[in-house]
């Protein structure tokens, strides 16, 4: 049963970050929505209102600080007209989706053209499970100024941080393998109308600890701790950490090719467990193009995209124009790329490497160009 919690008023601490483009009114504003208390055994935040001005393009709202051992997600989303557009009780993810995430649960609007941005007060209600520490810190980032006049092109700043791999901020620009990875990444993102502006930064933290990021099925704290160091010089950037590898010690140390915070990530918000993407660089010297593909795929998750089809076909993304694969030809319960030719294997967000030169769909491009980090 939900405990009634009064709606919070938006409180102070507005931080405006203007876009670098001359003449562009496209701005990002971070709001502190305050702290709410809830039962440590699990409970709801209560309605958290985020007021969207009439020229809002997109927003990411979150409640977080509940720790790496607890999971939370948006349970109810109500639009400015009072309609419940997402209800976790009925499981309809055709227009909006919020998966359970540890420590912090960002929610992106819009995440589908079927639920476009509208001005007025949107109301989010998070559910957070046991072990949450009894309180949530909530906030939002709003991109406004140009409304839905986003167009077919956008730029995204990417800050690349090398951790324990044989690249530095000084050597990356002249490294042929790295440039090959970057070419693949930029080409794939280009199919969504995205231009990438890349800068490099050397890692100032504990390199020995994060060269191999160790996780288990139940403990992503080391992954989260690396993301908590993300502090790009331009906050309107995505931080990509390139490490030696991510290893899952619940699976005998098997390598994870890449992982994003979220989806979605905490766009434009530094130093949180959802502030970037981590990519395994172990293929850099023998398959650099694959590193680029991993960056494109994981970056897509950060920007709010989901797998078009999951490995077992159990879920699809909330977009109408991304192909859905349902043909398990050999009946083994796994939807391989070879079985999904023409129905997703050519999409960047398929669950595994599919066709060469994958691309984004029109709706995927629509979503990512609207993300607060884009301009």
């Amino acid at each position, binding site marked *: 049963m939900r405990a009634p919690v009064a709606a919070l008023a938006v409180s102070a601490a507005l931080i405006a970050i203007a876009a670098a483009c001359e003449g562009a009114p496209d701005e990002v504003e971070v709001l502190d929505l305050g702290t709410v208390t809830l039962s440590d055994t699990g409970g709801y935040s209560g309605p958290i209102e985020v007021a969207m001005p009439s020229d809002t393009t997109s927003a990411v709202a979150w409640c977080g600080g509940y720790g790496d051992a607890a999971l939370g997600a948006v349970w109810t989303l109500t639009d400015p007209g009072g309609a419940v557009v997402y209800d976790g009780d009925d499981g309809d993810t055709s227009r909006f989706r919020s998966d359970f995430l540890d420590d912090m649960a960002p929610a992106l609007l819009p995440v589908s053209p079927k639920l476009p941005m509208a001005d007025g007060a949107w109301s989010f209600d998070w559910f957070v499970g046991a072990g949450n520490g009894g309180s949530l810190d909530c906030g939002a980032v709003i991109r406004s100024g140009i409304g839905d006049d986003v167009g077919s092109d956008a730029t995204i700043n990417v800050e690349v941080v090398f951790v324990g791999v044989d690249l530095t901020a000084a050597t990356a620009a002249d490294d042929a393998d790295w440039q090959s990875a970057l070419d693949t990444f930029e080409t794939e993102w280009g199919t969504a109308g995205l231009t990438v502006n890349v800068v490099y930064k050397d890692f100032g933290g*504990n390199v*020995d*600890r994060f*060269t*191999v990021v*160790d996780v288990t099925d139940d403990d992503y704290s080391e992954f989260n701790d690396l993301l908590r160091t993300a502090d790009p010089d331009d906050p309107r950037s995505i931080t990509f950490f390139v490490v*030696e*590898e991510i*290893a*899952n*010690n*619940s*699976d*005998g*140390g*098997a*390598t*994870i*090719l*890449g*992982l994003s915070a979220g989806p979605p990530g905490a766009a434009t918000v530094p130093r949180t467990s959802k502030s970037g993407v981590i990519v*395994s660089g*172990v*293929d850099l*010297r*023998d*398959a650099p193009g*694959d590193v680029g593909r*991993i960056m494109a*795929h*994981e970056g897509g998750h950060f920007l709010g995209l989901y797998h078009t089809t999951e*490995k077992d076909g159990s879920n699809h993304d909330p977009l109408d124009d991304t192909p859905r694969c349902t043909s398990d030809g050999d009946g*083994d*319960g*796994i939807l*391989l*790329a*070879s079985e999904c030719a023409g129905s997703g294997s050519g999409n960047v967000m398929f*669950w*595994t*490497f599919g066709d060469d030169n994958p691309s984004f769909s029109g709706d995927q491009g629509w979503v990512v160009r609207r993300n607060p980090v884009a301009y």
Partner: protein
Amino acid sequence: MIATFMLILAGPASAGELREPLMELLNAYEHGASAEDLTRLGDGVVAELLEIAADSGVPHSRRGRAVSALGHYPEPRVRSFLDAQLTGSDAFLQRKATGALAKAFRDDALPSLAPALEAEDAQLRLATVHAVGQLDSKAARDLLQARVRREKDDNVKSVLKSTLASMEAK
């Protein structure tokens, strides 16, 4: 009887009929191949995983995933292969071999893993600590306890201590 399995690393190996579906599983962005996934592919998986792991034409991460996937198969030919990787020259595959050995052979893998705890490579020692830490036995705890007294690297020592604490809490 000691089973032996020899691989000649002469370059890209020829692929069997399971190569394509196995590579698709190993190519997943965020997950390795589960035991259930591998079982669904039918017979011949182990032989193909051994080929993939040894194939210099396969991207390094996928070779590593094949090594890790071998951890689902506690067979003599797998043991020989993993022991060879652990004492080989590829640091990344050495790390993957530690986890696969522990997963497949449990405490029987400790004689192979113990020398890796003494390796010069701190990342290999770390991987071995994580691998041994997945074993719930006195022998595994004793091995890590013996190492923690001698470990000089702060990161490895920290992981040793936290791993031992987790093992004792079980």
